[in-house]
């Protein structure tokens, strides 16, 4: 009797441990999928030089912006678009989310990496143009059915402007090449 109870306790502990390990493993995979890798080269930026603190802020906010973009288009919610998108970029993404809600489509951007290059930084520091060579796995689904899956390399021209405490994406426009 005691042995049987002891055995059940060990079995339950083992199951909990397995579940925790599995959850941790899945969470790690999801985090690896959803956290974009972003690098920034400011060597060619001008006429104003990009200070290192500014460069760090741009990388931080661009990374967050893509996480939010990805979340918005995967969950079909415009809520994640608040804060790091403004102007045309926000309008386009909101429109894309609205259309997806209507058609039942979703998009997933997995395994993202972004090579950013600052190509213009205004003399007064109020606008920055960047080139982003983005690589990601794009998955488009209609309901639960995946209708498109590809590893894409896309070139984006990005306009960012400084806000009170962050850099905001105002234009995110894909081009065939730079």
């Amino acid at each position, binding site marked *: 009797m005691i042995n049987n109870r002891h055995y059940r306790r060990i079995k339950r502990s083992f199951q909990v441990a397995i579940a925790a390990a599995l959850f941790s493993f899945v969470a790690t995979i999801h985090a690896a999928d959803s956290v974009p890798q972003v690098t920034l080269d400011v060597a060619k930026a001008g*006429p104003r030089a990009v200070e290192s603190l500014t460069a760090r802020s741009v990388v931080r906010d661009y990374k967050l912006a893509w996480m939010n973009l990805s979340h918005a288009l995967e969950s079909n919610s415009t809520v994640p678009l608040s804060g790091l998108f403004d*102007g045309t970029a926000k*309008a386009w993404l909101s429109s894309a989310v609205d259309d997806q809600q209507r058609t039942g*489509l979703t998009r997933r951007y997995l395994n993202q990496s972004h090579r950013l290059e600052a190509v213009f930084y205004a003399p007064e520091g109020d*606008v920055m143009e960047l080139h982003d060579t983005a690589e990601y796995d794009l998955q*488009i689904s209609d309901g639960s059915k995946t209708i498109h899956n590809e590893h894409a390399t896309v070139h984006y021209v990005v306009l960012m402007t400084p806000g009170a405490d962050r850099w905001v994406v105002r234009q995110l*426009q*894909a081009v065939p090449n730079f």
Partner: protein
Amino acid sequence: MRPPSSVIAGNSISIGTTGSAAATFYLIGPASSIKRSVDLGKDIPIVANNIQSAGNYVAIVCASSCTSSEFFVSAAQPSSLTLLVHPSRAPVAQKDVISAVALNFDEFHNLAMTPAGVDFHLSAQGVPPISRAVESKGGISWFRMSSGKSAGPLQVVASIDGVSTRRVVEEVASDPCNLRIKGQRTAKSISVETDPIRDCAGNPVPDGTVVTFTARDGDQVSTVDAPVKKDVARAEIDAKGPVTISAASGVVMGNELRMSGQ
């Protein structure tokens, strides 16, 4: 599927298909998602307002299986300019103090990245206008210039293909160049005032520019801040004994005025 090789934003297109089955067509763009039933073998028309946003589009057709094709939509001709001019008030005779940045957009708010000549036209009262042609790169053109010698509004106009945007920079006097004071005793105090204060180019400094008057009576020092009003700053200084009065504004010091006691 055969999408067009090049597409300009806001133009309708049709995508050719092969086959004969009924299918579902999807078009995924930067600002839109379309889903509709189509018959393979017929062209799929896409109306202009579904491809107004520049960027990459993924066209997908699903029958028994899904196939996809991609194409890019480019910005149309520039139809508006966003013009950023700094500062809004610039002191005269300062080197490279004014900057202007123009961004070209088409009617659908796409950044128009094709190189295009942007004309910057600068005009101020009493001086010949200046024009400068700058070719945009990546949708952006910019220039920097020194401020003029006279105070007053400077109009900055950027134009491209008949579209123009205007901004105004108020050129204001620089720091005072010379500061001269004069004074006289009254029954209770000493009344001091400056001569009309001007910058080195002869422009009167703006009202509100602060002049600090300092009176020294042995070891005692008292100061009075007075704003310039109609080119002149005035102050009343309480002192009965002999005092030395000086004035300063910014980094400029004025003459010293020695007043004897009452």
